[in-house]
């Protein structure tokens, strides 16, 4: 056997040991924890980290607000300054109302079972001062905020697997999500523009911004230390001018860029000219435009910094809600501080970076550089859930302060007693404003909708959260690795945003994306891709750069001819392009080597000088939310981390074989690093046609597998469970590293590829009935029914319903499914209409029952009694977990791990199935036609490997790219088969089970791991003969739930007509729909006027047309027999020419509607 191929192992004993005795120290599968690290890490950063975490940075950024107690003109009154000094979040605990509980910690499992939220108190330290006097503090409760599991605010943090089990969790509980109303929710990762890097953009929509606007722009997404961001855009105007655009509270503002420059520092035109042109004074394109830029600005007549600031402050006074005591200059300063390049603190730095951006814009216009691609991973980073959560909290705190101010102002306006010195007044204001920030976050998590004043610099308002469905573990873990491009892009008609770009190599999985509408927008992170959740320490970098010969940022240099060195969007200095390469190389060597105070994950993006390529420079990135991934650095043979910005300019060999000296600096640790967790689980995916691997990534997530091992402590609406899951014989080594054997997802099945009896045509498959009877693919569905008695009364009303039977008399058969306490018996079999709980209603004095409403037979698995939050009221809630057995039946869906799905079309008994000479019979028969067009060779190889593994009693490694042309998989496994006495190619002669005759050719038979998909006929079949109809049209209703029909639509009608099946057409559209017999008057042709007469005693009712009849004039002539009487006793003569016809009922309805509009329909009925 070739030694290059590693053999996997089942590790049965090790797994059993871990399962029986979960480790007491650390997780057995650390890779899983790494998969959710971006979520947990970003949430932890809210309260942990420098300066007390992001939330405390955020409240510092919000700053102090001011309000005055007078609204008289010319008198300000007393000044009241207030701010939030500190934010705290506690760990989840029982409510303070509950006095009896000793252990006050609340664990997530309780929230899941009780369908409540896992949350804890948000405490704000409110600080205020009156007339700039001493500051006073008060701690305010701002509601309870949902807490991410396994974060530093969760009790599960750092728990060992054994502890996790003790607290009713999975032994490998990963956290990273929230529990909201018992539902597990997570904030999905979102792709946003890379922070603090000016990006050149050509966008046609820019032209529409105003007169003379061009499609050129430079955009920077500038991120504050608290992770909130502000986007600044420079627009190029066709006359050469540049304007600065930003959005504030969803409104857009445009300012001439020179005004910003002049407001930032005390400067002059010369300095601006030098900072943009540098030494290239002969570049007339540039000098012309600069001249114009500076010249047009002259019209504002603003020369000094103070004048400019005052001008800006005057314009933005209202927008920023500045109080009258603040000068225009100070407002202007605030505008610069809050809007312009907020990632930089110093105005001088902002000035330099703005000049750089202007130059980049001119270079873009001149064609000296190309636009940057916003769809490439190079210019992207990830918006992490925790950071977004922090941004929302920040905004809500800001709103809270605004609300405080608004309340005081309205008190002043309404001439109420406002006394800042009085603590009572302050607490009265608190009483009147909405302090419940926690509720808003709960709303955000449960709906995914962002309610925001500012829009948080994001492009969408909804779709931020998803339910972490636990259909099986594959699906669950995928949620945490899922990255969305943004719902804005989902509506775009162009497909450019969906394209797979080479820049995302190693960061986003090329395989794992759904097909259909979210294709290419919903990606998954490669399994080795890490997202930084904290900034690295780069405080030593400026000194190191200086040592390496990077000149001062103040030197006379600009433009692409010199190399600009930037660290996180701050200009560190200038150097030559030759030296920049040296600097980059040395930095990389030093950072990998360690000991030079350079973080390993520093991104060293050296963009070399090119002719019309990307704008050159040396761009260093150290902050959070970046994607990085490990690769091996060849000069030191050590692990290096590379990011998507630098990667396009690096030479990373995929395999050690292809390393060429002088070219490659890095090599991949493994080529499988580019795949997501799920894509790695497809065995021999390198043998398959690529779309098949995508399909498998989808189907792996729809498999009826093992959702978890702690399902008794969960109350999900629906759980699918495969009862007899197996460890796959053929699996990638990563399968073991991720510990996926704890959650088996399928069964090893003997699969024969043969066309047998015709029941395996067109992706159908034949199941061995005897295998099925022995338990193949047996699964169950668990559903939870909630019984809530409090819905019977209004909120606040006293409790009148109690679980259990009352003293009154009630049907004895209720006790068949209910126990003496009125709760269902565990194990009881429930059918539609059976009672699932009995309760006594005091107001009626009667015992009542709640009924089981589903059509499917179910068994009672668990009954849970749920108390209320405070634990002070009588039990009013319970959940009943029901088990629905789902043995595989005809119509259920199965699939191998190669995108080969099929529907079971027939179950043949063992005697009828083909068999080999040793008597082996297939569990599953699939048709050979499933292969040529789909080219899933991987499935053949898996079959071969599975057979070899089963024969030799070992697992086989199916990691892709392990075999080569010289050392083929077919040979490796073929030799093993040969050794076991089987045919080298995996074929065997087989005999027909029906005749016993040897089949005309040998059959490919082997072992393939089969998944049972959750789509089952029992959830889908829809059939009806008669049933409920719509009362208005008398046509059948629609919907499976209401036992409605399936519409025979226009296209179906066309087909019937085309086939000439008139009788069928009539049957479907009339007889089985709204066939009615109505009376029509043959004289006047009306459908509406014939009516039944009131018969005389002994006579029969007749149909008469009221319209054609005439009222009997008293004493008038009439013939006996013609006289009739209506319900009011009025007598009529005539109108006897009626007959009965069959029409669709809607016709009568139409007639009635038309009659209401005064339109008469007349039907000519023949024969008369």
């Amino acid at each position, binding site marked *: 056997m070739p030694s290059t191929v590693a053999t996997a192992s089942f590790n049965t004993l090790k797994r059993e040991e871990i399962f029986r005795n979960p480790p007491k120290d650390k997780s057995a599968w650390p890779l899983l924890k790494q998969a959710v690290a971006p979520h947990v890490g970003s949430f932890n950063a809210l309260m942990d980290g420098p300066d007390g975490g992001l939330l405390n940075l955020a409240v510092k950024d919000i700053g102090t607000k001011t309000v005055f107690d007078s609204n008289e003109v010319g008198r300000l009154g007393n000044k009241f300054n207030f701010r939030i000094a500190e934010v705290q979040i506690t760990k989840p605990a029982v409510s303070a109302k509950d006095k009896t509980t000793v252990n006050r910690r609340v664990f997530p499992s309780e929230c899941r079972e009780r369908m409540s939220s896992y949350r804890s108190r948000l405490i704000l330290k409110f600080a205020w001062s009156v007339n700039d006097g001493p500051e006073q503090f008060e701690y305010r409760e701002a509601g309870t905020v949902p807490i991410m599991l396994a974060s530093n605010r969760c009790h599960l943090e750092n728990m060992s697997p054994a502890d996790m089990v003790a607290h009713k969790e999975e032994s490998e509980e990963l956290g990273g999500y929230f529990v909201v109303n018992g539902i597990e929710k997570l904030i999905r990762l979102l792709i946003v523009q890379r922070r603090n890097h000016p990006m050149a953009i050509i966008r046609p929509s820019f032209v529409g911004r105003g007169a003379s606007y061009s499609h050129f722009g430079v955009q920077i997404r500038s991120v504050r230390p608290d992770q909130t961001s502000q986007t600044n855009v420079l627009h190029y105007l066709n006359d050469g001018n540049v304007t600065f655009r930003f959005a504030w509270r969803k409104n857009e503002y445009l300012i001439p860029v020179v005004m910003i420059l002049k407001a930032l520092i005390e400067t002059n035109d010369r300095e601006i000219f030098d900072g943009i042109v540098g030494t290239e004074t002969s570049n007339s394109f540039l000098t012309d435009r600069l001249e114009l830029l500076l010249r047009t600005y002259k019209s504002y007549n603003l020369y000094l910094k103070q004048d400019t600031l005052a001008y800006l402050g005057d314009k933005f006074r209202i927008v920023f809600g500045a109080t009258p005591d603040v000068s225009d200059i100070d407002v202007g300063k605030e505008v610069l501080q809050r809007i312009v390049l907020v990632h930089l603190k110093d105005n001088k730095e902002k000035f330099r970076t703005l000049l750089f951006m202007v130059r980049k814009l001119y270079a873009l216009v001149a064609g000296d550089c190309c636009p940057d691609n916003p769809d490439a991973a190079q210019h992207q980073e990830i918006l992490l859930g925790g950071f977004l959560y922090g941004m929302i909290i920040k905004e809500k705190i800001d709103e809270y302060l605004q609300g405080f101010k608004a309340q005081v102002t309205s008190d002043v306006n309404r001439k109420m007693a406002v006394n800042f010195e009085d603590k009572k007044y302050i607490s009265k204001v608190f009483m009147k404003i909405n302090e419940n920030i926690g509720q808003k976050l709960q709303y955000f998590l449960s709906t995914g909708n962002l309610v925001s004043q500012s829009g948080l610099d994001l492009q969408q308002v909804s779709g931020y959260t998803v339910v972490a469905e636990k259909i099986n573990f594959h699906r669950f873990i995928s949620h945490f690795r899922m990255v969305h491009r943004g719902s804005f892009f989902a509506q775009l008609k162009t497909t450019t945003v969906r394209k797979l770009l080479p820049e995302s190599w190693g960061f986003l999985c090329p395989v794992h994306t759904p097909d259909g509408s979210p294709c290419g927008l919903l990606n998954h992170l490669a399994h080795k891709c890490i997202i930084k959740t904290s900034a690295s320490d780069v405080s030593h970098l400026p000194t190191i750069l200086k040592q390496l010969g990077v000149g001062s940022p103040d030197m006379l240099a600009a433009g692409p001819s010199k190399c600009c060195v930037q660290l996180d969007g701050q200009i560190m200095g200038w150097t030559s392009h030759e030296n920049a390469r040296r600097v980059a190389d040395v930095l990389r060597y030093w950072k990998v080597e360690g000991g030079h105070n350079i973080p390993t994950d520093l991104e060293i993006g050296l963009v070399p000088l090119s002719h019309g390529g990307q704008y050159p420079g040396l761009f260093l990135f150290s902050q959070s939310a970046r994607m990085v991934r490990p690769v091996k650095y060849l000069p030191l043979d050590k692990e290096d981390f590379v990011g998507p910005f630098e990667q396009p300019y690096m030479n990373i060999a995929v395999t050690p074989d292809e390393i060429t000296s002088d070219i490659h600096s890095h090599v991949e640790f493994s080529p499988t690093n580019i795949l997501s967790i799920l894509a790695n689980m497809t065995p021999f995916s390198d043998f398959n046609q690529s779309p098949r691997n995508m399909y498998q990534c989808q189907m792996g997530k729809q498999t009826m597998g093992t959702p978890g091992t702690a399902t008794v402590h969960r109350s999900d609406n629906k759980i699918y469970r495969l009862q007899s899951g197996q460890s796959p014989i053929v699996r990638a080594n990563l399968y073991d590293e991720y510990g996926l054997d704890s959650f088996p997802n399928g069964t090893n099945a003997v699969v024969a590829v043969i066309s047998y009896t015709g029941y395996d045509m067109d992706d159908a498959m034949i199941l061995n009935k005897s295998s099925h009877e022995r338990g193949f693919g047996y699964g169950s569905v668990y559903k939870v029914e909630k019984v809530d008695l409090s819905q019977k009364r209004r909120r606040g009303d006293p409790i009148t319903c109690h679980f259990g039977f009352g003293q009154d008399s009630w049907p004895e058969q209720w006790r068949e499914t209910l126990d003496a306490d009125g709760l269902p018996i565990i194990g009881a079999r429930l059918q539609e209409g059976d009672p699932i709980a009995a309760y006594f209603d005091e107001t009626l004095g009667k015992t009542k029952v709640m009924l089981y409403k589903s059509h499917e037979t179910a068994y009672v698995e668990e009954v849970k009694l749920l108390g209320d939050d405070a634990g002070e009221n009588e039990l009013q809630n319970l959940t009943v977990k029901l088990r629905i057995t789902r043995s595989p039946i005809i119509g259920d869906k199965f699939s191998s791990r190669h995108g080969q799905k099929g529907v079971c079309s027939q179950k043949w008994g063992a005697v009828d199935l083909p068999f080999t000479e040793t*008597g082996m019979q297939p569990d599953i028969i699939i048709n050979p036609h499933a292969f040529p067009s789909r080219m899933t060779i991987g499935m053949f190889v898996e079959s071969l490997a599975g057979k070899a593994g089963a024969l030799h009693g070992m697992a086989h490694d199916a990691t892709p790219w392990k075999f080569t042309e010289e050392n083929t998989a077919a040979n490796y496994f073929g030799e093993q088969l040969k050794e076991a006495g089987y*045919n080298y190619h995996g074929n065997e002669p087989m005999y027909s089970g029906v005749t016993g005759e040897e089949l005309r050719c040998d059959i490919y038979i082997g072992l393939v791991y089969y998944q049972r998909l959750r789509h089952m006929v029992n959830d889908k079949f829809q059939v009806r003969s008669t049933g409920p109809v719509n009362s208005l049209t008398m046509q059948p209703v629609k919907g499976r739930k209401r036992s409605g029909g399936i519409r025979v639509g226009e296209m179906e009608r066309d087909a019937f007509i085309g086939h000439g099946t008139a009788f069928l057409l009539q049957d479907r559209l009339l007889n089985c729909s709204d066939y009615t017999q109505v009376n029509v008057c043959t004289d006047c042709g009306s459908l509406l006027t014939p009516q039944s007469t009131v018969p005389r005693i002994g006579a029969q009712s007749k149909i008469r047309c009221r319209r054609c009849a005439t009222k009997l004039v008293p004493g008038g002539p009439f013939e006996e027999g013609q006289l009739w009487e209506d319900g009011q006793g009025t007598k009529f003569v005539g109108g006897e020419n009626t007959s009965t016809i069959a029409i669709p009922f809607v016709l009568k309805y139409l007639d009635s509607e038309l009659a209401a509009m005064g339109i008469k329909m007349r039907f000519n009925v023949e024969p008369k």
Partner: protein
Amino acid sequence: MNRSSEQGPEVTIRRVGREDVDFVVKDMDLALANSFRRVMIGEIPTLAIDLVEIEINTSVLADEFIAHRLGLIPLESTLVDNLLFTRDCDCDQYCDKCSVELMLSARCTTDATMDVYTRDLMVTTVSQYNNYDNNNNNNLGQPICNDQEGKGILICKLRKHQELRLKCVAKKGIAKEHAKWSPTAAMGFEYDPWNKLRHTDYWYEEDANEEWPKSANCDWEEPPRENEPFDYNAKPNQYYFTVESAGSLKQHDIVMRGIDVLQKKLAGIIFELKVLDETSEKSRLDTEFQGTAYGQTPNPEYNWN
């Protein structure tokens, strides 16, 4: 029926193992050989648990799941012929004449996990057919425990305070209805190991003889001579069977009863044909039609031979 040999089929028993038997049958028609195989897999009556009345189940496994596991347990069925099929019995649901009752009662009282095995299943029906002197080996309905420790199959695991108490009703049935009644495991069947009849076609890359492993049964037949002309009239004549018991019946019982069931089925067909013949003859006589001898069909186009 094939009458190529006057003596009838000839059987050579090659090997008898603990649970399997390997034999060769000569001078038999393929259809008959396959019928024999099918009957052994699917139509020999055995005993298996069919009804489970669960009194207490506090184990982690669901009721129906345990019931399914119980059903698959092989039960001693050598004397099953003494039982009636429930459908033929005149009882309401089940009785001693058509079923055997078993009890399982287990409760874990220790901290260690308790394993419940098939040997814990107790036959409670006092049957007249059981021979209690003979080490309980032939007792009808006794679970088969062929492993070294004699524990049998693991049914369920219980932790402290969990309990499993149930009554099982084992009934007679055949594997056509449910696989649990199958007396056989895999059933080996082969003929013509040299592929002289060319029923099949070995796929090969270069040389079929090189690439295909030789069947062990090749030693029992003459290899084809070189340039031997293909006899297109030849029919398979020699069959290699391997019968492996699943436990409920001894392997020789499976073979013998297989023959028995097959004979009875054929007899049934012959009897029905006779009845059919008699009635058709009667109707023919009624219509003054020329009578035919027994064995000939009323419809000349349809030839039974």
